[in-house]
C-alpha cells in the first residue's frame, strides 16, 4: 500500500475533519445513557476510504481508563465498513467512549488514522417497591397470597406502590387476575392522580370487584411503574398466587327429621 504522502504522518497533519486518510470511523453505536453497573455494548464502525485493502485495527477506551476494544484487527475491502465490538461496565458517573482507528503501513508499523468520541450519560435509577398487597373479599381482608377464601365471595385487590426515590413521583400500576382455569377475570391499570407520591410514601391502588366463583388457586401478575421524563420504567413486579378458594359448603340443613322408634331400655 502506498502512502499518499510517502511516509506515515500524524493524523492531524494529513486528514480533514472527521476522517483519516485511509479510514473513517463512521459511527460509535452505544446507548446515550446507562445505569451504573449496567453492561454497555459498543459497536465501532470503521470504513476503508482508500482504494485498496487495508489492515485496520480498532481501539476503544472508556474515559482513557478501560480499553474495552483492544487492538482488534481486520482486513477491510475498499469502500467497505467493518464493525468492531466490545463492552464495558457503566461507572457511577457519565463517561466518554473514545474510538481510534489504525492502519498497518507498508513497513508493518501501525499508524493512527481517525478517532471519534461518544458520551454516555449516567442514567438515573428509578426505584419503587410493591410494598403491600391485600385481597378484600366482602367485608374481610387478607394479605396476598391469601388462603381458604370461601367460594362465592366478591374479590377486590388492593396494592400499594412505594416511591423509593428522593423526589416526589407519579406511581402507576398494572395487574391481571386469572382464575384457576387461567381465564382473565380482571385487568386493571392506573396512574395516580396529582398530588403524587412523596419519597418513602406509598400509593394505594384499588381495582374492580370480581367474583371468586371457582375453587382452586387464583393468580395475579402485578407491575409497578413510575412516570418520569416521558418514560414509564418498570420498578417492581409480583407474579404468583392471589388466593386459594375453598369449595363452598352449603349452610347447615336437615331433612327428613323424624322419630323412628321408642322403646323401654
Amino acid at each position: 500500500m502506498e502512502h499518499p504522502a510517502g511516509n506515515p504522518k500524524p493524523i492531524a497533519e494529513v486528514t480533514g475533519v472527521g476522517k483519516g486518510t485511509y479510514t473513517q470511523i463512521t459511527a460509535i453505536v452505544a446507548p446515550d445513557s446507562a445505569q451504573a453497573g449496567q453492561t454497555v455494548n459498543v459497536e465501532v464502525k470503521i470504513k476503508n476510504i482508500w482504494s485498496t485493502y487495508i489492515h485496520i485495527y480498532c481501539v476503544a477506551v472508556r474515559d482513557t481508563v478501560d480499553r474495552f476494544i483492544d487492538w482488534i484487527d481486520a482486513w477491510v475491502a475498499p469502500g467497505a465498513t467493518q464493525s468492531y465490538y466490545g463492552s464495558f461496565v457503566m461507572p457511577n458517573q457519565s463517561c466518554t467512549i473514545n474510538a481510534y482507528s489504525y492502519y498497518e503501513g507498508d513497513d508493518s508499523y501501525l499508524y493512527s488514522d481517525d478517532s471519534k468520541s461518544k458520551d454516555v450519560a449516567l442514567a438515573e435509577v428509578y426505584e419503587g417497591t410493591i410494598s403491600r398487597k391485600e385481597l378484600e373479599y366482602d367485608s374481610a381482608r387478607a394479605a396476598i397470597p391469601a388462603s381458604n377464601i370461601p367460594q362465592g365471595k366478591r374479590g377486590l385487590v388492593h396494592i400499594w406502590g412505594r416511591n423509593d426515590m428522593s423526589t416526589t413521583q407519579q406511581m402507576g400500576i398494572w395487574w391481571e387476575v386469572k382464575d384457576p382455569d387461567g381465564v382473565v377475570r380482571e385487568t386493571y391499570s392506573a396512574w395516580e392522580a396529582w398530588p403524587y407520591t412523596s419519597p418513602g410514601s406509598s400509593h394505594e391502588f384499588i381495582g374492580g370487584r370480581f367474583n371468586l366463583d371457582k375453587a382452586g388457586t387464583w393468580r395475579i401478575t402485578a407491575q409497578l411503574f413510575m412516570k418520569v421524563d416521558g418514560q414509564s420504567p418498570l420498578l417492581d413486579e409480583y407474579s404468583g398466587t392471589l388466593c386459594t378458594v375453598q369449595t363452598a359448603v352449603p349452610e347447615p340443613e336437615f331433612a327428613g327429621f323424624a322419630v323412628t322408634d321408642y322403646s323401654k331400655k
Partner: protein
Amino acid sequence: MQSLYERQLAALGALGVAPPGKLTVMRGDIVRMTVAFNYRGSAINVTLRCSIGQKNLGVFDEIAYATKPISLPQSMDFVPYEAYADISTAAIAPGMNYDIEAKIEEYTGQTLVKVDNVIDVLGEPEFQNFVITDYSKL
C-alpha cells in the same frame, strides 16, 4: 301386622315401637327415643333433645327430657344419620297417652317433630277385676 306375642312384648317395652304405636312403661323406666335425619353442610356440633310431655291448651308441656351431643361432619350432600336419647320416666305421673317430641336444639325450625298419645306410664301395683270365681271342698 304384629302378632299377639309381638304386641305383648311391645306392651312390655321389650320391642321398639314405631310411631304411632303405643309404648307402655312403668314409672321410672328409661325410654330410649331414636330419631333419623339427613344432614348436609359444614361440620357442626349440635344437641338432640327428646322429650315426653302432654299437650296443655294445645301447647306441648315437657315433663321429662334427655339431651345428647351429636357431631356432624362436613358434607356437600345429604347424609343419613340416626341418633337416640334415653329419657327417665321417674318424673312422670302415671297416666295414659303421653306425647313425645324430638328436635335438634340449634335447628328447631328444621327438626321439631311431635307424636301424640304414644306413651302410657303405669304407676302403683294395680289389680283389676278381682272377684271370687269359685269355691269347693278339697
